[in-house]
């Protein structure tokens, strides 16, 4: 569990905001670069940043790299210390970004006169270490035995080694006191209301880095101090002395080991100059990323080389690049070391516009070997390592495996199903489960091959029934639409059409067999389809309609007398008994759909010149019973 929350999970910057930090860094930045604008001008005086400005911008730059590379789970907190401790942000994800911190800094404002010191901020920082981060809160209920560790980077200025030592001792004492409090309070607070107050955790280790800042020429009696353990391993203290002007590069260096990062210098990037667009000059851009991205290069590196930025050469892309797709392994986020420089901006824009860059190890002897790929995805930059063959190359052909020689898969239809089951970024829980249940519904009745189904090959004839039936529920209107599909099928059958006549010509040959047989298959399949979806009442209504249709189909001769009567009025006397089905009682209007001449001749209602006795028609070969309705009516009345 040691690895659950590493030291870099929580970092706190303590910035000294005392009047001393208002003094100049004495590192002049020359402003007057307006070359060639006449000599008569009064030169602008160079300006110097204050110690405060230097420490703020260095700390902010450190954060920029951390938050660019680890948008989650690496937290940084700011404490500004003067007479009181100004806490600029909490561990909450919403406050873990540069905008929030910079806004807070605006409110703190420049250094003012007054008392105060770094101690109050340092104590507040140690308290903050004891506060559980959102991730830790989510953990505490499941296992409380993780190590709560963190790092405090305190940017201050002290008189001498002794005052630094006493500062560290104060920090240690505060930590010990707080741990005592946490070990007592913790059981109560978590039992009562874990959400009301920030949960106090015992801090198991604190890495305290004290950076002693001085102006350019000032002497200091503070010395560098290697990491030393205090309080029996509870705290590790490191002291670094730095000129204000070098603070930014110092923190830029420190962030690398703190987060296991490494840098790569992309060399030889061709860029067009504004002045002469015809030629291009080569530039270098340094990027920062996880040290793991260099794992493959380590074999050929010496220890000294490993500490330096790895130089990789830009491999000018030729045509369409594969993006990060060529990487077999993981990807890591990347951020430029100097985000404001022009070459960095060029490289970033090139990538953000959707191109990718292959990087190669520069070799003296010639021969090229691509080592990494840089690409942007979702507005972020990524690096991935290339190289090595894959273990799954030369795969066995699908056509030789199971199902490989079947040639009539319903690929187009499955493509449509995939389009209907496309995923989208949503908000809220349960999205995955909804997607799965939707797929479950869409695949309830889904023949894999064309030859194993007839109804799905009938195309427009079956529309919109096959499309609507997969829905969770049907409206009355949709049920009517589906019903009319069934009824038109019924009328097709009554007209002795082959269902296969609707198939594309290349399929027609395959579904041989007699017409009755084909119709039986169509109805059988339809029943299977509707039974598979008979979970809502509307679906069941549809199923009942189908069963009625089937009943006519299978037992036309002894069907209901009413249907027979209708048939008697509509069918030609030439038609064989039981072949025509007329239509179901509910939607007889559908039979009068447009027809061709032959259909019209065969199916048109004829004047009943000599209407046959309805009872005889119904009875078929048996003896006809007179007035059967009369008998039924008598029965129903009782």
């Amino acid at each position, binding site marked *: 569990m040691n*690895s659950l929350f590493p030291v870099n999970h929580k970092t706190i910057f303590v910035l000294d905001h005392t009047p001393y930090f208002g003094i100049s860094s004495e590192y002049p*930045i020359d402003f007057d*670069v307006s070359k060639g604008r006449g000599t008569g001008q009064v030169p602008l005086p160079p*300006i110097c940043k204050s110690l405060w*400005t230097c420490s703020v*911008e260095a700390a*902010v*730059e450190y954060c920029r790299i951390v938050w*660019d590379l680890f*948008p*989650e789970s690496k937290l940084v907190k700011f404490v500004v210390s003067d007479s009181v401790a100004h806490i600029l942000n909490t561990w909450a994800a919403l406050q873990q970004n*540069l905008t929030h911190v910079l806004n807070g800094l605006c409110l703190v*404002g*420049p*250094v003012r006169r007054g008392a105060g010191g770094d101690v109050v901020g340092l104590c507040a920082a140690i308290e903050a270490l004891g506060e559980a981060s959102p991730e830790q809160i989510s*953990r505490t209920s499941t296992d409380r035995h993780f190590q709560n560790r963190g790092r405090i980077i305190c940017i201050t200025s002290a008189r001498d080694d002794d005052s630094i030592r006493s500062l560290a001792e104060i920090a240690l004492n505060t930590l010990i006191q707080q741990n005592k409090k946490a070990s007592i309070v913790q059981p109560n607070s978590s039992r009562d209301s874990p959400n009301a107050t920030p949960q106090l955790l015992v801090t198991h280790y604190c890495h305290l880095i004290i950076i002693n800042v001085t102006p350019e020429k000032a002497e200091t009696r503070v010395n560098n101090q290697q990491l030393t353990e205090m309080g029996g391993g509870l705290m590790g203290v490191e002291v670094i002395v730095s000129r204000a002007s070098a603070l930014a590069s110092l923190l830029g260096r420190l962030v690398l080991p703190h987060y296991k990062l490494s840098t790569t210098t992309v060399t030889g990037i061709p860029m067009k100059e504004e002045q002469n667009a015809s030629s291009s000059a080569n530039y270098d851009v340094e990027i920062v990323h996880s040290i793991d991205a260099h*794992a493959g290069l*380590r*074999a050929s590196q010496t220890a000294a080389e490993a500490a330096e930025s790895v130089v990789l050469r830009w491999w000018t892309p030729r045509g369409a690049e594969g*993006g990060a797709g060529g990487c077999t*392994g*993981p990807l890591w986020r990347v951020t430029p070391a100097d*985000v404001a420089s022009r070459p960095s901006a060029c490289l970033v824009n090139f990538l953000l516009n959707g191109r990718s860059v292959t990087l190669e190890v520069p070799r003296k002897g010639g021969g090229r070997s691509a080592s990494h790929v840089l*690409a942007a*995805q*979702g*507005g972020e*930059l990524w690096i991935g390592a290339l190289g*090595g*063959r894959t*273990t*799954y190359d*030369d795969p066995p*052909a*699908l*056509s030789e*495996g*199971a*199902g*490989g020689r*079947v040639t009539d898969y319903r690929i187009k239809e499955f493509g449509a199903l*995939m389009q209907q*089951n*496309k*995923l989208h970024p*949503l908000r*809220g829980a349960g999205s995955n489960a*909804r997607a*799965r249940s939707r*797929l479950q*519904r*869409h695949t309830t009745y*889904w023949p894999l*091959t064309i*030859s*194993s*189904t007839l109804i799905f090959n009938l195309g427009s004839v079956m529309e919109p029934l096959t499309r609507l039936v997969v829905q*969770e529920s049907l409206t009355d209107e949709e049920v009517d639409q589906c019903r009319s599909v069934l009824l038109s099928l019924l009328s097709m059958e009554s007209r002795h059409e082959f269902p296969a006549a609707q198939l594309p010509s290349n399929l027609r040959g395959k579904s041989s*067999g007699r017409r009755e047989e084909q119709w039986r298959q169509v109805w059988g*399949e339809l029943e299977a389809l509707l039974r598979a979806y008979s979970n809502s009442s509307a679906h069941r209504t549809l199923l009942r309609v189908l069963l009625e249709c089937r009943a006519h189909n299978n037992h036309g001769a002894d069907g209901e007398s009413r249907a027979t009567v209708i048939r008697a009025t509509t069918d030609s006397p030439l038609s064989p008994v039981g072949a025509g089905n007329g239509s179901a009682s509910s939607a007889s209007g559908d039979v009068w759909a447009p027809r061709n001449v032959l259909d019209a001749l065969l199916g048109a209602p004829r004047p009943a010149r000599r209407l046959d006795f309805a009872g005889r028609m119904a009875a078929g070969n048996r003896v006809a019973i007179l007035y059967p309705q009369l008998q039924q009516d008598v029965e129903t009345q009782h």
Partner: protein
Amino acid sequence: MPTIILLDVSLSMSRPVISSDSIENHTRSSIAVAAINSFLDYLSVHAKLEYVALVSFSSVHDVAVPFTRDFDSIRTKLPQIEEGDKTCIDSALLGVNQLVMNEWGHQTPIQIILITDGSSGVGAIGRNRIIQSLPLPTLYPVKIHILPIVSPHDPCLQHAMPLYQKIIDQATVTANNSNGTISRGSIYCPEQLSVSSVIAAMTRLCEQHYQEFWCSLKCGQLEARVQLFPAPQTVSHESLTATYTLSNQLHIIGFVQQQDLGTPIAISKHLVIPQAQINNNTSGRENYGSKTPTKDGSTTENITTEEEMSDPSKIPNFCVLLHGALKVEGMSAIILLGTEWWGTLSAWCEASRARRSCLLLSVLKPGVSAAPWLGPLDQLGPPEEGSAPTEVFPVRAWRSYSGGGGSGSTWARPHALLADVQKVLRHARKLPDKTQHLYKELNRLRRSAISLGFSELLTCVSTALERECSALPSNAPPECALQLAHAIAALRDPRTAFDIKHTLQPIAANITLTSMSH
């Protein structure tokens, strides 16, 4: 995982094996050859796609057969291997490292089966020297198994055991890669020094480490039995709180366009090979049509279906359909692998073999953020029926380099500060056209300066603007001087300049101009 058989061919391997009942005369080498053959036999049944290399070693090492799937080439090579002098495990491992790095790089996990005769070939001091100089841990993830062809009671083995244990432990000590650590190998000691018990030890090894992985791929109610190759490993990593083992059911939850998917952070990739359905009770689902056979057609139809049943390649398989559709639509399937764990399934083909395409499963980094541009993976779902989704791919992230105006965070390097000031001055020289731009840049500059407590900068910029004002050509429109004076005054007024809520506005130019024209 590609496997290297690391075969000891030192002189001591050719010692004869004394056995009471055997008719044949065996040496340790011949037993080793028998064990390797049984290993290859196992692979040709269970892991045909595995790559195997044969490296023989004594004081020098030799790649007898480079990585191949043609196991017969190893079988034919085995009798031809010449014997060497003494056992030097450290230099052999060094050679193996080179072979692996050249062929597979640092990201592919490798298994090494070290077959030796149970004597380290040196005394206690020499053994410590070997332990010191072992080229472990390797840069690539590796699992080392040791098969000593020795009687378990041999005193030599007792001496060699600490070395073997060290090799196995060190191999997995720090798998530096982010693919996570892989489980460690073991020592497979035969129960006695005979062909049968060495083969039994080898069989144990095979069964533990070369098991094929079967699972079922489910898409709603459609299902297919598939084999994953290479077999997925249990994932554990320092940044993960739990270990992740692939379950035997892969659930498709939906589909995304290939270009939306991009390249998520994958930890391993596996071929998905469809297998014949073994249980016929589900096969009825694929044969709706044949449910209604007719009297006259039934006999012939039954014959053909029986014929088809015997040939699995003629039974429709969901995998093949899925592959075809993924390819045609240019889509990928998103697969739920376990709790908080996802994978993707795509049609994939090697660039060199464009026609031979297959299904490839990418096992993603556990957790919801394996592809941040898709949003949290647990929130992927179907849009509400009939309504358009509110968000679309890619879900964009904003980073410091995303553009859209720098934040004062970048002034740590002087050139960035200079560039920002120059921008203000450039606009100041192009008044009155760039009035809006001038004030926009000034406010940006002010904002950064306020957050950094950099009041010196604003004083300096106002001085620079003053100089621009004095350098205005005589024919410049009067508005230029007006705007500049206004800006300078605003920058110098502590009430307006350092109030973050205050925004500098251009002086209302029209009114001034009309009043001047009168």
